[in-house]
């Protein structure tokens, strides 16, 4: 559709000062898409590798953890750690959405604190999970 450039555009995303509530809103969508595609495919891959037998599972684990010399495969580690954070972020902001659905938490201060809390909790849980995994591995 042809647009007359002389006419003003409706104010959109770019005109607002970013706050935690906006960040959490877009993170909920972004992490949701990432989990839906990457994490779900990884879950299917893991289960299919497991169902393929011992050799097939060993290949999957080697790819995801370390090569034969014991060196960590950095890219799979980064993807797994990133998806762990995405999982906890989506979980926390999802719980926040369920609370907001009840009509609670729309006061400016409470809303901002709730948004900040989802990010703090998701980062903390990611660190706890990976600390426990890596401590057991080494």
């Amino acid at each position, binding site marked *: 559709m042809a647009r007359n450039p002389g006419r003003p555009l409706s104010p959109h995303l770019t005109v607002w000062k970013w706050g935690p509530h906006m960040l959490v809103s877009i993170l909920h*969508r972004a992490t*949701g*898409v990432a*989990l*839906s595609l990457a994490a*779900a*495919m990884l*879950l*299917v891959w893991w*289960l*299919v590798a*497991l*169902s393929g037998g*011992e050799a097939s*599972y*060993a290949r999957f*684990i080697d790819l995801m*953890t370390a090569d034969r010399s014991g060196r960590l495969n950095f890219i799979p580690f980064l993807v797994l750690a990133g998806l762990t954070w995405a*999982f906890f972020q989506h*979980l926390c902001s*999802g*719980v926040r*959405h*369920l609370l907001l*659905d009840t009509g609670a938490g729309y006061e400016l201060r409470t809303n901002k604190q709730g948004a900040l809390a989802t990010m703090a909790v998701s980062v903390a849980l990611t660190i706890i*999970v990976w600390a*426990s*995994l890596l401590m057991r591995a080494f």
Partner: protein
Amino acid sequence: MGTGTGIGRVRGFGSAHAGTHHWWRQRLTAGSNLLLLTWLVASLIRLPITNYRALVLWLSSPWASVPLILAIVSLFYHLRLGLQVVIEDYQHDFSRVVALVLLNFYAIGGAALAIYAVLRVAFAGALH
């Protein structure tokens, strides 16, 4: 009731009664995801994840394989509903229809493959 414009053709029919249904299923699967995926993540941390035999033994118990199948159904149902909203927000023409059909293929196909893999491990493990 007109026959010309889109709004004219639907005016007076009332709601399609599909919006609340989508909203409610998204909340329902969010709740089941919260329970089932928390259980799955906790299990993955506790299990010796690199040990093939330990995982086969784990999945040969219905107390692990059944919740895992439920988690797969809940997860793929929830992502099917969520990605539908994303597609509807950003795709407008015929590409929307194509994307929604592909989404259904992905969600149902992915869930079927994952469930088949779980059952294969569960039944093979139970025979040993």
